[in-house]
């Protein structure tokens, strides 16, 4: 039962983070691009959507702490490790390509979605190797 609550809390946190992200991104674009807010205020406004994305990492950390089922915790850890490993590998390779002028610049904010895609790959790996993909 406790694990159900952990999952439910994670889902709510994820939904709140994503709703906050969309709302603050729209507001930040309006304030900076349409209203021309600049300087420290622009920095402060533009960091808010980024913090909303970062709160998904916090939600994942909380899920890892609150999930009482050790097997499901293992599935989640494997997904996180595969997601982190893939992200770091792709970003490192891209960085070298970029350094040698082979590819265009890679915006830093792509790293978070790349990590979530990597976690999805982790779920597929879990399914193929353990038969379960219920980590996250």
């Amino acid at each position, binding site marked *: *039962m*406790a*694990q159900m609550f952990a999952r439910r809390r994670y889902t709510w946190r994820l939904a709140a983070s994503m709703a906050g992200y969309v709302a603050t991104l729209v507001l930040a674009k309006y304030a900076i691009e349409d209203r021309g807010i600049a300087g420290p205020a622009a920095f402060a406004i533009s960091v808010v959507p980024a913090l909303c994305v970062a709160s998904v990492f916090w939600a994942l950390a909380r899920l890892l702490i609150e999930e*009482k*089922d*050790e*097997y*499901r915790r*293992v599935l989640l850890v494997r997904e996180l490790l595969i997601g982190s490993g893939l992200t770091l590998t792709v970003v490192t390779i891209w960085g070298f390509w970029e350094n040698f002028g082979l590819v265009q610049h890679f915006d830093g904010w792509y790293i978070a979605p790349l990590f979530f895609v990597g976690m999805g790959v982790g779920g597929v790996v879990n399914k193929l190797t*353990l*038969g*379960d993909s*219920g980590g996250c």
Partner: protein
Amino acid sequence: MENRLRVLRAERRWSQQDLAERLEVSRQSVNAIETGKYDPSLPLAFRIAELFELPIEEIFVSPSRRSSKAI
């Protein structure tokens, strides 16, 4: 790790869900342990042993003993 969990569960006519509820884990966990895909932690192994009122070594086959038998 090889184990007798499925047999012990079947003797009591428990489903995987029944056992999962008794152990306060997910059905996925029970299935993963039964099929040897996942080795439980020591606290969970003790909970399983206490539930079946058996010593741990009568439920889980020691990997070292298993390999020495094979030799």
